[in-house]
């Protein structure tokens, strides 16, 4: 069995963990520099504030009652690290899927005790970090995602929802789940599925896998198998929500060589940047993570991650590689043999939407145009002449490094001079 654990309203929950007075208030987290809403509390959603809305366009009445904060990536990165450290106590096999979502291998756990195991995990994370999480448990990643959604939406599950491959509950749930709400089914694919008479997840599950492969792709066929309870999709191949891009890979053999890790992180960052440009997005932050192998048991263990905010939303490989390199330097420790490292691009924004932002620091049109042309050329060469025909050398030295983040809360867990203050009187 596989569990998907995710933190509810992650950025907002991190802020609330250190400022209990924010509980119950409409809270929004803004991107640095361009001031768009990148995270909303339930209360802020209820006020009708859309994801990505620029702060300066919000009605004054909403700006008055809402608490709008700059993003505090140092805090979110540290809390993400803590959550994963706790998850590692519940399974030797933790795969980070995004800053607030991880898959856990639950192999070998008695089916009858899965729910209790999930509840214990949830309570431990809540107790140790103050963050609320939901747990979906199922035989495949795609079903675990469905289960996680149920755990979040149906209070009766109390945050933990186990879903078997073949049960009345599973059928009931999949019959009511529109196929476009499944992981990795884009709206256009959904329209084509509808033409074939497939509207729900259950109908997709019942479809002939070979027919689905012919009409769509191997990945869609795998989705059918996943819905039936047969694991078929790897974490790297999961179609990605458009809010983040993950590139990670295990090393062929364990390595403790910093140069191996540096090369891998640069390569992952370059791949992620390509994906980012292909979907026409820009990233606002880069997360880097690495870990040792849980085996052999007894070998020194280390896992860490860090989030590096970008000065402005960017799809320029040079910015992304530079940030990824600084992130790696901050968390790399010698004396360990690493099994895996990865790069994640966070809080993506579409290239067009960004033009609307007025608050943004001015980057001259010439510079932006030059960067876009350069990246387009690089992507074309790599596409036509083979991957890695053009690679990036050392980071440039002139990266601008001034973040606009007046509304940022203290970096409670990563700076001595910004610790949480508690009154004795």
């Amino acid at each position: 069995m596989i569990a998907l654990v995710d933190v509810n309203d992650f950025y907002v929950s991190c802020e609330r963990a250190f400022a209990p007075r924010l509980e119950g208030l409409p809270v929004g987290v803004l991107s640095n520099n361009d001031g768009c809403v990148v995270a909303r509390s339930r209360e802020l959603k209820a006020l009708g504030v859309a994801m990505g809305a620029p702060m300066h366009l919000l009605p004054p009445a909403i700006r008055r009652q809402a608490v709008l904060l700059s993003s505090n990536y140092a805090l979110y990165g540290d809390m993400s690290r803590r959550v994963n450290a706790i998850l590692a106590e519940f399974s030797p096999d933790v795969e980070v899927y995004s800053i607030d979502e991880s898959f856990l291998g639950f192999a070998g756990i008695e089916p009858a005790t899965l729910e209790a195991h999930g509840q214990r995990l949830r309570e431990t994370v809540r107790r140790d970090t103050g963050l609320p999480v939901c747990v979906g448990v199922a035989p495949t990643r795609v079903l675990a995602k469905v289960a996680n959604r149920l755990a979040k939406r149906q209070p009766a599950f109390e945050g933990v929802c186990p879903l078997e491959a073949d049960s009345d509950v599973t059928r009931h749930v999949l019959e009511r789940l529109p196929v476009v709400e499944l992981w990795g089914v884009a709206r256009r694919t959904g329209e084509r599925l509808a033409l074939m008479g497939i509207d729900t997840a259950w109908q997709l599950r019942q479809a002939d896998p070979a027919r689905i492969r012919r009409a769509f792709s191997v990945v869609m066929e795998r989705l059918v198998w996943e819905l039936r309870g047969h694991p078929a999709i790897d974490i790297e191949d999961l179609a990605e929500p458009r809010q983040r891009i993950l590139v990670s890979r295990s090393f062929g053999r364990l390595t403790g060589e910093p140069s191996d890790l540096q090369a891998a992180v640069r390569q992952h960052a370059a791949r992620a940047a390509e994906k980012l440009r292909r979907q026409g997005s820009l990233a606002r932050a880069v997360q880097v993570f690495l870990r040792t192998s849980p085996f052999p048991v007894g070998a020194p263990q280390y896992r860490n991650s860090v989030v590096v905010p970008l000065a402005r939303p960017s799809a320029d490989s040079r910015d992304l590689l530079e940030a990824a390199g600084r992130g790696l330097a901050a968390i790399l420790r010698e004396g360990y043999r690493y099994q895996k490292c990865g790069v994640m691009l966070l809080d993506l924004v579409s290239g067009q939407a960004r033009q609307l932002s007025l608050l943004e620091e001015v980057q001259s049109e010439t510079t932006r145009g030059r960067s876009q042309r350069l990246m387009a050329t690089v992507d074309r060469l790599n596409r036509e002449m083979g991957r890695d025909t053009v690679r990036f050398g050392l980071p440039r030295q002139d990266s601008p490094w001034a973040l606009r983040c007046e509304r940022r809360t203290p970096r409670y867990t990563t700076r001595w001079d910004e610790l949480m203050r508690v009154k004795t009187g």
Partner: protein
Amino acid sequence: MSFAARVCVSGRAVLGSGGGAQPLMGCRVRAGFPSPADDHLDVEIDLHAHVVRRPASTYFVRAEGDSMLGDGIHDGDLLVVDRSLEPLPGRVVVIAVDGEPTVKRLARLGARTVLLASNPRFAPIPLEGRECQVWGVVTHVLHALPGAAP
């Protein structure tokens, strides 16, 4: 029980990450038979590991005010808080009272749980009728004396 009686312990204190380690003055006096467990190699004494038992749930916070002086907590002291520990009566806790994080000692007064300041000028605070959420248990206080780096 072991027959070895330790009078004082030798070891090295860690001077913070990156800094060199420096031997503490010390000696070890034994009486009776040496225990095989003492054969392991001493490397260094790690204050962080001593104070932070569970890194994922341990946070550092800064105290403000003087109502907990009796518990050794001065204005500006650094507190080590472990969120995984149970808030039992007698423990000093960080607790959000009406949304405001506060340090107090938990106590039982008859059937009621109250918060005590260690300064007698402050009356016990009953928890009933307030929005209260224990945040964590304070395990250590780090108080800087004259001469300490700021």
